[in-house]
């Protein structure tokens, strides 16, 4: 599809520009999709948590509340942006942008369906790690530029938490790249082809759990949301943000959640691979289509992890700050190190599906 489009564009544009136009087009489509997903994730969150708490959730705007996200966005866009008097104006406005840019830019290397990825780079995994580590600046600078004690406390908590959990996350990904033998996300998915029994989630189960929980902590979601901690520090780092600047922080948080869900399914659950890929008896029947790799499988996996995010928020009480630090440094990091050693043994003894690859 991309090739045909490029040929079409090639009729109107000279040599390097048709490729540029195609890439920009792909980026725009992807970003619009991500933002729409964010919009409906907020609705899903309110609905799911509503049902878990025996409420209905938003149901007034549009059929069954389906237009609620748009009402929220329009409301936030029309509201006044208030910049506190003694804040650092420039950083105050730049901070939300620093939060949203890495959340969207990481999507460049994520393979969405077989043969489609905007930037097919060899060091894709490193690119993901580098960009997600940039996200902390938005929170830090927002907290500092606001010139408010609540905001500063929120930023401090958030920074310590993100630095702590990034290490566990990185170690979990070391396990993934040892098993797949590649830093390219497409190759990591290929290494897990052949059905659910080849997924890294099975063979690297402790790393999978550590990665996903660290992802929840990294996005400052409940039960790790001490950076916002409504009951202690009002709203944490975005306490003084209003209108569209607040909306951008909101967008960044939810875009990051979708990103973590997508990355978890790429790294551990085979991305666009079908869980029934190895089932021979499906071939030739009407069910053959569910054994094929497709965007639908990727979407289903992302949706499942997103549901987990909402589920955690509805069911777990918030962690205390020292408990968060203990979990990150004293439990997750040793668990990942132990499992990497176990994985080394598996590689040497040629146990597991990846032994065939390398």
């Amino acid at each position: 599809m991309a090739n045909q489009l490029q040929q079409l564009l090639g009729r109107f544009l000279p040599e390097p520009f048709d490729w540029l136009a195609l890439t920009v087009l792909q980026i725009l489509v992807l970003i619009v999709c991500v933002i729409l997903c964010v919009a409906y994730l907020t609705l899903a969150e309110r609905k799911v948590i509503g049902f878990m708490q025996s409420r209905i959730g938003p149901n007034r705007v549009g059929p069954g509340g389906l237009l609620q996200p748009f009402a929220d966005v329009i409301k936030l866009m029309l509201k006044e942006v208030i910049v506190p008097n003694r804040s650092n104006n420039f950083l105050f406005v730049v901070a939300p942008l620093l939060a949203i840019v890495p959340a969207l830019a990481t999507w460049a290397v994520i393979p969405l369906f077989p043969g489609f990825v905007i930037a097919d780079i060899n060091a894709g995994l490193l690119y993901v790690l580098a960009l997600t580590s940039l996200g902390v600046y938005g929170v830090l600078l927002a907290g500092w530029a606001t010139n408010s004690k609540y905001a500063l406390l929120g930023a401090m908590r958030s920074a310590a938490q993100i630095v702590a959990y990034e290490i566990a996350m990185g170690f979990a990904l070391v396990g993934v790249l040892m098993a797949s033998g590649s830093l390219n996300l497409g190759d990591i998915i290929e290494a897990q082809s052949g059905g659910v029994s080849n997924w890294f989630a099975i063979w690297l189960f402790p790393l999978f759990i550590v990665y996903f929980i660290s992802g929840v902590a990294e996005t400052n979601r409940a039960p790790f949301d001490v950076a916002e901690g409504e009951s202690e520090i009002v709203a944490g780092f975005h306490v003084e943000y209003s209108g569209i600047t607040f909306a951008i922080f909101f967008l960044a948080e939810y875009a990051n959640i979708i990103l973590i869900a997508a990355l978890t399914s790429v790294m551990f659950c085979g991305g666009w691979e079908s869980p029934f890929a190895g089932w021979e008896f499906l071939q030739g029947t009407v069910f053959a289509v569910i054994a094929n790799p497709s965007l639908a499988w990727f979407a289903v996996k992302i949706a499942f992890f997103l549901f987990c995010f909402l589920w955690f928020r509805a069911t777990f009480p918030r962690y205390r700050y020292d408990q968060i630090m203990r979990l990150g440094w004293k439990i997750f990091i040793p668990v990942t190190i132990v499992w990497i050693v176990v994985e080394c043994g598996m590689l040497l003894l040629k146990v597991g599906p990846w032994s065939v690859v390398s």
Partner: protein
Amino acid sequence: MAEQIVFYAFSGLLIIAALGVVVSRNPINAVMSLVLCFVTSAAIWLLLEAEFLAMILVLVYVGAVMVLFVFVVMMQDIESATLSARFAPNLLPGLIVGAVSLAELLVVVWVRREGLPIAAVPEPHPADYSNTLELGKILYTQYVYAFELAAFLLLLAIVAAIVLTMRERPGLKKQNISQQVSVRKEDRVRLVKMEPESDA
């Protein structure tokens, strides 16, 4: 052509950001300029096909080291820090370091001009060439002892830093997490059976 445009754009940005680090009076602005420096130099490294080093530069320096810098600077009282920032006392050492760096750069330019073999421009690699793979191969075969030694030194530094900062103060209140987790309701709650009372 396109490569040169990108190179000069990023180099210009790098120089401006580096000036920002030195000139800026506000410590946070200086730190953020330094962050910009690292990101732009990572982009220049990408042009040199060193994608592994570029990513690691962003990951380690921007993602971890500079976060700690911001962390420390944020704790300072900015007003007093801004006033006390002066150039004069650091002028002489700064000039010396600058002069030495400039001389080193000039040596590189001179070597290039003379056309010595160590400065030959390497052939560009094909698109499927993995810089990370090549680096890994050479680090774990040819330079394995040096590499392991460096890793060991870093580990030593980590352990030393932790040991130096771990001081037992008298009167410090500590939590025993396993005790907290294994608490049972019998230890904390006492149910008292009371007969109903009435005045009548």
